[in-house]
């Protein structure tokens, strides 16, 4: 940064922090808005196409059997794939209004320390806000590790 006395050294770390953006896929899980890093989402479909699927409700907060049917499916990379095996995918059932957004890193807040040991899902890693509404930030890797997937006996036809 030039000044009358020459160049002023700006700490690179701070400069990076101020400019950093994170690309997120935002979606609904019942009445709650949630988001995960876009790099984990490989595709989006209207119907489940993968062998293994899970409803976001059951992974995040609700174990009851009375769950609404997801309206959209996000295809995610399977982080549980054993070494040497070909990386497979699974699908997360979510609700409508899916959007891709770039948010400043400074608006993404980590989970308060006190809550870390009491979470139903270890995938919840922070919060942000969208039009003054709380958005749950999810760690896609921990989401897939949390619960065993439901395995469909015969996967439905692939749809785009």
């Amino acid at each position: 940064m030039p000044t009358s006395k020459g160049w002023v050294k700006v700490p690179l770390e701070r400069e990076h922090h101020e400019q950093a953006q994170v690309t997120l896929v935002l979606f609904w899980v019942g009445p709650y808005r949630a988001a995960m890093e876009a790099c984990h989402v490989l595709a989006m479909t209207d119907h489940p196409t993968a062998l293994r699927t899970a409803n976001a409700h059951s992974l995040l907060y609700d174990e009851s059997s009375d769950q609404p049917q997801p309206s959209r499916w996000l295809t995610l990379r399977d982080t549980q794939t054993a070494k040497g095996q070909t990386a497979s995918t699974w699908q997360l059932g979510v609700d409508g209004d899916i959007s891709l957004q770039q948010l400043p890193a400074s608006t993404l807040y980590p989970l308060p320390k006190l809550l870390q040991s009491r979470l139903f899902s270890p995938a919840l890693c922070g919060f942000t806000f969208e039009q003054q509404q709380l958005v749950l930030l999810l760690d896609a890797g921990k989401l897939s590790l949390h619960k065993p997937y439901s395995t469909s006996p015969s996967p439905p036809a692939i749809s785009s």
Partner: protein
Amino acid sequence: MNSETSRDSHANDQQQISQTLEEALAAHHDDESVVDVDEPTQQLVLFRINGQRFALPGSAVSEILPSDQPVYYVPGLPASTEGVLHLRGKIESVINLQPLLDLPTPEGTPSGMILLVSASGIRSGVRIEQLDDVCEVAQSLLQPPPETLSSTLLPYVSALWQIDERQALALLDPEALFSAYQQGLG
């Protein structure tokens, strides 16, 4: 100035001096009201939960937030967690102490203030029912909790302040509260 006015004025002065001396002398006779400035004191934040009187060390309470501070519900957390709040670019948790203290959880929208409490490197909001006072209390007035104290309260009470014959106040240990919460209690 006439002589009568001057006499009245002098009388008033005498009355004022007399009252001041009276108060000063009375103060010397009232041993209990003498404050030993050298006696160590502790700042306490006095409040109520479910009508019961509690306190937290003032050193642990960094801020008192108004009751209308927005708190956002977070799914997948125990009932003792009210949610999170957004305060000056940071997210803080908000918990209720009722489950830990074995008190009934009030129904409806929480309406009391929120104490921002720090202990053991953890900071969290704690919802209270009513803020009573923030005051300095002589350390000598804080007694160890009696063994007769409820076993539910005992782990979280560091001292008892017997305010008068009828009223006692439990000084809560914020570290013990947070530790218990993290261990899954409450």
